[in-house]
């Protein structure tokens, strides 16, 4: 979709039963999953019987005239779609193969999904508690990271095409991408001077839910607060009772946010902060040199002034579903702006048009 957003003509080749993501949800809009609608705009859809020689032949013809192919290599419907085959008739093709775990190694052919990859790449260790059921990242980070890396690789390969005189094959995987995004941890585990720190604490700390105000949650960071402000802050937060707590000594050191002892004294801060609204707590804490960040859910985001000012969310006509809301792409090009040209296609919506273009 990102390539489509950037202006490419994207032809989505679907089987007769269609992309399984059409059936995801609820929620659905107009009978198609909301997730599908927002991952498939700016594309045209051709539906082919990929079990038949005719269908496969048509797909091969599309591939033979394309600049780019994006292929789920763990679920190839037919060997004709392998890179070696396709490149014979189209050596200029940039063929982006996406696999679950990588194109080499004992799991090269292993079926994959978002949760399995999150688990296998250690990503769930950044959530939940040891000994309790694993907690997944709600955002589909493995899939999204692989997609983003895929687009990077495709663009780079297109740039190289003139220089080397041909296309090439490019492999990305969900597993590899998620491991790459955790690189900071691998470096942190490489013989550090000390075995604690902002990054390593992710293995050690319990779940953090932010700080509860009476009407919402905030995240607080007092790292920049001047020495000596602590007392007056505690007074303004009506936390005098805290002096009797045996963990009071920790409050003076890295005791909030991602600080080293934040989890040790979280309950003390919670008790204080929950007396106030978000606005009140923000006011008090920032007055003393601390930083406060509101913790938004999506409803709060949609109603946020900055989000509105930037025009992030817009309303589009989605045939079959009426008007739906979606987000604009994340980049702004001054001279070659993106366009949202096509809504997400119905299954096979453009079959006839594409066949005509192919000259059949």
């Amino acid at each position, binding site marked *: 979709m990102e390539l489509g957003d950037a202006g490419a003509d994207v032809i989505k080749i679907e089987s007769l039963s269609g992309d399984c993501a059409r059936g995801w949800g609820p929620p659905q809009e107009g009978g198609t999953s909301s997730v599908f609608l927002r991952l498939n705009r700016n594309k045209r859809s051709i539906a082919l019987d990929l079990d038949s020689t005719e269908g496969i032949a048509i797909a091969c013809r599309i591939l033979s005239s394309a600049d780019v192919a994006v292929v789920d290599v763990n679920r190839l419907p037919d060997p004709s779609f392998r890179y070696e085959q396709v490149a014979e008739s189209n050596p200029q093709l940039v063929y982006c193969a996406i696999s679950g775990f990588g194109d080499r190694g004992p799991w090269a052919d292993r079926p994959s999904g978002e949760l399995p990859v999150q688990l296998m790449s250690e990503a769930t260790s950044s959530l939940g508690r*040891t000994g309790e059921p694993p907690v997944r990242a709600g955002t589909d980070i493995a899939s999204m990271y692989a997609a983003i890396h895929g687009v990077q690789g495709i663009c780079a390969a297109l740039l190289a095409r003139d220089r080397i005189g041909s296309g090439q094959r490019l492999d990305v995987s969900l597993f590899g991408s998620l491991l790459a995004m955790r690189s900071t941890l691998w470096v942190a585990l490489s013989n550090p001077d000390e075995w604690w720190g902002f990054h390593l604490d992710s293995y*050690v700390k319990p779940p953090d839910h932010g700080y509860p105000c009476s009407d919402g949650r905030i995240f607080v960071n007092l790292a920049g607060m001047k020495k000596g402000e602590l007392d007056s802050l505690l007074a303004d937060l009506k936390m005098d009772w805290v002096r009797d707590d045996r963990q009071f000594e920790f409050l003076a050191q890295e005791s909030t946010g991602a600080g080293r002892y934040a989890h040790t004294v979280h309950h003390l801060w919670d008790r204080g902060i929950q007396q106030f609204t978000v606005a009140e707590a923000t006011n008090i804490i920032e007055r003393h040199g601390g930083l406060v960040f509101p913790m938004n859910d999506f409803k709060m985001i949609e109603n946020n002034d900055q989000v509105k000012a930037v025009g992030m969310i817009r309303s589009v006509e989605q045939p079959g579903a009426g008007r739906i809301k979606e987000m604009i792409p994340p980049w702004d090009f001054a001279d070659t702006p993106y366009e949202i040209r096509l809504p997400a296609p119905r299954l096979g919506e453009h079959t006839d048009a594409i066949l005509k273009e192919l000259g059949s």
Partner: protein
Amino acid sequence: MSGPLEGIRVFDLTLAMVGPFATAQLGALGADVIHVEAPEEAGVRRTTVPPSIKGTSIGYINWNMNKRGILLDLKQESDRDVAYRLLKTCDVFVENMRPGVVERLGMGYEKVSAINPRVIYISSSGWGDEGPMVGSPAADGIVQVFGGWSSINGPVGGPPEVYRHSTQNDSNTSNYIVQSVLLALLARDKNGRGQLVKTTMLGAIIALQTSRIAEYFATGKTPEPLGSADSRTVPHQAFLCEDKTWVAVGVVKEEQWQPLCQVLQLQDLADDARFRTNRDRVAHRDELVPLLERTFATKPRYHWVEELNEAGVPAAKFMEWDEIRFHPQVTQNDHVIQVPTRAWGTVYWGGPPYHFSRTPARVFSAPEPGEHTQEVLAELGVASTSGVQPE
């Protein structure tokens, strides 16, 4: 370059684990081990002890590596004749059947030594061939509990716990069998004759517990389960770390105590008279351990493993199979190896635990039952057996 036992041939009439695993090691050392099975038993044995790979018990695959396999029905006279022919070419004979069985099959020591006086004859059983328990069934679990092995495993305060990986005593017995074979071969070099050597699971498990039994003799006190802790050295146990994983720490030499205290930043412990020597620390174990537990819980395991090892104090994490099997320390030393087999794919095996500079050990696939019957018969110059074919 072949193994140290090249040229030695073994007549392997063993079952289950104790016997076969011993002869598998002789095979790794280069001996030509010929595993002799009765046709109907070969079929049965394939399916006992799950799990299985393609229908064959992994026990069978595991414990019969490095051998050739032939089928002989020793109840048939013609097959017994073949066996006697084979015996003439063998140096070692190993059996681990129930008392009386091997004699009924015409393969008792009297008969075998008459055919080939140079044969080293190993007879292994659970309890031995004398005493009130002769003939009682023996298995790893039973021998464990009888032999006192289980009585010293378990959480602090008991109850005693059976070691769940029930092959340790089988393989321990196998190791003593291998030892016996090698020693008897050495003896034969001197006096030119074979002999009968008896080994038992009970004897083997008691021998393994030498040091614990010595403690008992010295103190008159029955040792109790101590969780992960050691009875003789303190601290020597697992500690829970900040990230809820365990680290194993062992102060087994006096000069490791001070460095431990330094890494833990507990200088007052280092100066405390109650804990100065190992003897003191054992005596005051109950006072010392909680102090250490508290400190270990303040940092993640990585920290302790790295810092303690740097200070010369043994410390390690508890490894899991996933971690062990690809760890370079293991792979570079061939401690876990992959063995290609025709019938069961690639299997993992514990690599031979010795590295010979000139006569290296070698490992190859277990045979399918009867796989080498024809080959061995041909070597013996025998046309066929009593119509027995490999299944």
